């Protein structure tokens, strides 16, 4: 589904002092587009995602999905993969994956079947009866992704979903997930710290500046999706990579004088 | 529990609560038709409180109660800490005494007072002994847990840097055990208050608890209510002292919630 972010700013107030997390963000995503968000730690990526999903109302501006302004969360419209996974530790893995379906009133039989399918896709089919405490960090992240996919959402909001995975697992998962995403025409916003991940997956990479977070630059990746693994070995990839690397370096605030693009910072 | 901004409604709500209490009380006296022999009116209670406060004997009674609680608490702390420390020294002792301290903890020691009266009489000694025994178990149990759960890594560090066993005890074990010990001591302080005051109410010849029991048995309701208020004040002072003693300087001012 189409999504536009209009003039969004977020300011946190805490014990009298204020933190400007996001400033004047303007973006628009077309249906089925895959956007990766890159930026220094603390620049407001998670905050932006939270607003996109309707978990937080921006201090200024609005987010429009389809024809309506986002005000409340709705997992069928936009489902989350949280940065800290946030699985419910008292439920087993299968029930964790199906939790959104359960809230939506889907029957047990159907719920279990769907959850099991997704677990298989995530390479966790034998873990259904275990509890989150028994899984590694990377496995929990995959469960959180499955939980979001289970809702079959129009928009998928993922906050560093594969940060704890090794390169190999990440790539093989990447292939299966990106097939699903492309088939279902899902719009995806992925927050990541990995340049490779961003370039391999996304149609467009957005680079955000350090606090207050603004959109500093964006790069189109024209290669059609889903992409073969060989893409990573191509010349284009390496070029994009070094281009983004330099941008990110600027965003971090290194090399400040040399760069006229660097926005004023508080 | 996390810190939150204090809501502006906090004080109005507290005032409301107090108002409700006074309102129910006044209603009971007036339209509720409860006899003033059973529920004295608020002015009568305040009058009795004023009277009590103007008498030297009240202060004497308070001093006795205070002294008994303090003595019981100190004795229990010394013995409880020593017992906890001693019992945590070897794994076998730990397993044996952990259960025994838990049993002492679970036992309704409040029932045992008649035995203390028989052995120590109705004087000050029986209150102190009784209070000390009931405060002993929580202090001993928590100290034992505290000394037994010193992080192995910290002990490794001590060993690696050549600390003697005396140094290990005082520089590593004691500081890392302090938080649990202090929660045990807090519970012990509560236990000694509970038992000493109840013992005074059951059988004694002096103290605020005795005055309370006497007034209530002679149906001097306003005086009994006044004693309840004084006892609450005494408990408040004691709790304040314990907090002062046990809250590290840097944490003062924060509200610490312990659910015991």
């Amino acid at each position: 589904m189409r999504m536009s972010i209009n003039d969004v700013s977020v300011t946190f107030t805490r014990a009298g002092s204020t933190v400007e997390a996001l400033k004047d963000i303007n973006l628009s995503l077309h249906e089925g587009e895959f956007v990766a968000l890159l930026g220094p730690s603390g620049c407001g990526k998670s905050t932006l995602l939270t607003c996109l999903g309707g978990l937080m109302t921006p201090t200024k501006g609005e987010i429009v999905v389809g024809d309506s302004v986002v005000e409340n969360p709705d997992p069928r419209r936009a489902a989350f993969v949280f940065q800290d996974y946030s699985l419910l530790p008292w439920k087993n893995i299968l029930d964790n994956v199906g939790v959104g379906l359960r809230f939506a009133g889907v029957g047990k039989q159907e719920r279990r079947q769907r959850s099991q399918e997704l677990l298989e896709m995530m390479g966790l089919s034998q873990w259904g009866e275990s509890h989150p405490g028994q899984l590694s960090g990377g496995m929990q992240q995959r469960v959180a992704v499955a939980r979001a996919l289970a809702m079959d959402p129009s928009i998928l909001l993922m906050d560093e979903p594969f940060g704890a995975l090794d390169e190999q697992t990440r790539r093989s998962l990447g292939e299966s997930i990106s097939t699903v995403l492309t088939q279902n025409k899902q719009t995806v916003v992925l927050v990541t710290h990995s340049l490779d991940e961003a370039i391999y997956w996304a149609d467009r990479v957005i680079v955000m500046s350090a606090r207050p977070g603004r959109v500093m630059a964006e790069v189109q990746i024209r290669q059609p999706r889903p992409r073969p693994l060989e893409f990573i070995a191509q010349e284009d990839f390496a070029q994009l990579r070094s281009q983004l690397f330099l941008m990110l370096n600027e965003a971090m605030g290194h090399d400040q004088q040399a760069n006229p693009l660097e926005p004023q910072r508080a | 529990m996390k810190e939150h901004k204090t809501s502006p409604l906090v004080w109005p709500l507290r005032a409301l609560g107090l108002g409700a209490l006074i309102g129910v009380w006044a209603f009971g006296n007036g339209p509720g038709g409860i006899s003033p022999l059973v529920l004295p009116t608020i002015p009568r209670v305040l009058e009795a409180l004023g009277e009590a406060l103007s008498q030297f004997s009240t202060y004497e009674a308070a001093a006795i109660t205070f002294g008994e609680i303090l003595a019981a608490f100190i004795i229990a702390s010394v013995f409880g800490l020593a017992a906890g420390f001693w019992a945590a020294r070897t794994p076998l002792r730990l397993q044996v005494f952990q259960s025994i301290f838990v049993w002492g903890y679970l036992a309704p020691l409040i029932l045992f007072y008649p035995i203390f009266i028989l052995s120590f009489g109705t004087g000050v000694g029986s209150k102190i002994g009784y209070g000390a025994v009931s405060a002993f178990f929580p202090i001993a149990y928590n100290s034992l847990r505290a000394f037994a759960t010193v992080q192995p890594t910290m002990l490794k560090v001590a060993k690696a840097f050549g600390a003697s066993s005396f140094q290990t005890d005082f520089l590593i074990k004691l500081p890392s055990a302090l938080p649990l010990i202090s929660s045990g001591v807090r519970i012990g302080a509560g236990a000694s208050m509970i038992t000493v005051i109840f013992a005074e109410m059951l059988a004694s010849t002096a103290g605020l608890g005795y005055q309370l029991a006497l007034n209530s048995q002679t149906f001097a309701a306003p005086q009994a209510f006044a004693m309840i208020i004084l006892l609450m004040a005494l408990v408040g002072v004691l709790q304040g002292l314990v907090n002062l003693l046990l809250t590290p300087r840097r944490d003062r001012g924060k509200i610490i919630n312990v659910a015991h």
Partner: protein
Amino acid sequence: MKTQARIGRVAVVVAGLLVWELLTRFDLIDSDFVSTPIAVGVAFTEMLRNSEVLSALASTGGNILLAFIIGTVIGVIAGTVMGLSKTLWQAYSAPLLFLMSTPKSIFLPIFILLCGIGSTSAVVFGAFEAAVFVTINVAAGMALVEDRHMKVARAFKASWAQTILAVVLPSALPGIFTALWFGIRHAFIGVLIAELWASSDGVGGLIRVYAEQLHTDKTLALMLAVTFLAIIAGTIWNHLETRLTRWRQSSAAGAATTTATS
């Protein structure tokens, strides 16, 4: 190690009894005041056949159960309300915490004046004791509900009832368990205190009567029987709690909560 520890515990208890017996036998302390283990044992076996004792046990047991139910219901409702509203918690937690660590026995005279001497005031006082502790512990248990889990409920559009069932209740379960334990324990203590202080029936009253008649053996036999029941109940509860909240990784730490905080 385990059997060694078991033998060790038995040895400590037996040694205690032995010292007690010897001290009285050699008249180092007066057996009139502390009786002797053998006399207490004899009194205990007689007690099992004494209808006075059995009916006292039954009536006290009934009072405790009633006090527990009333106190817990009140406490769970009050604690849930306080746990759900930060403002209410801020306003009333301090007075409640003060009340919790104040010896509740000082309020006994009020209960006796209002409800008279007998079962009613024992039940009401026991319910009061229990309610105070249950309220605080339920409210504290609700504070264990993590924001991030509430966020999951919101993001996946759980209804109000679903949020309570799927997130709040399981998170608060350890707190609720502790609360129930305190409910039982303080209903028990409250009823016995009330009986001991001003009642001639029930176990508490009986203990007082025996003590006043200098029947030390009977007094102690009754006390030890009650103590034994309390310890058994506490131990069973601890096992149950550990079992039901097993998903917590730190269940070893959790297992100690009941005993460490009574």
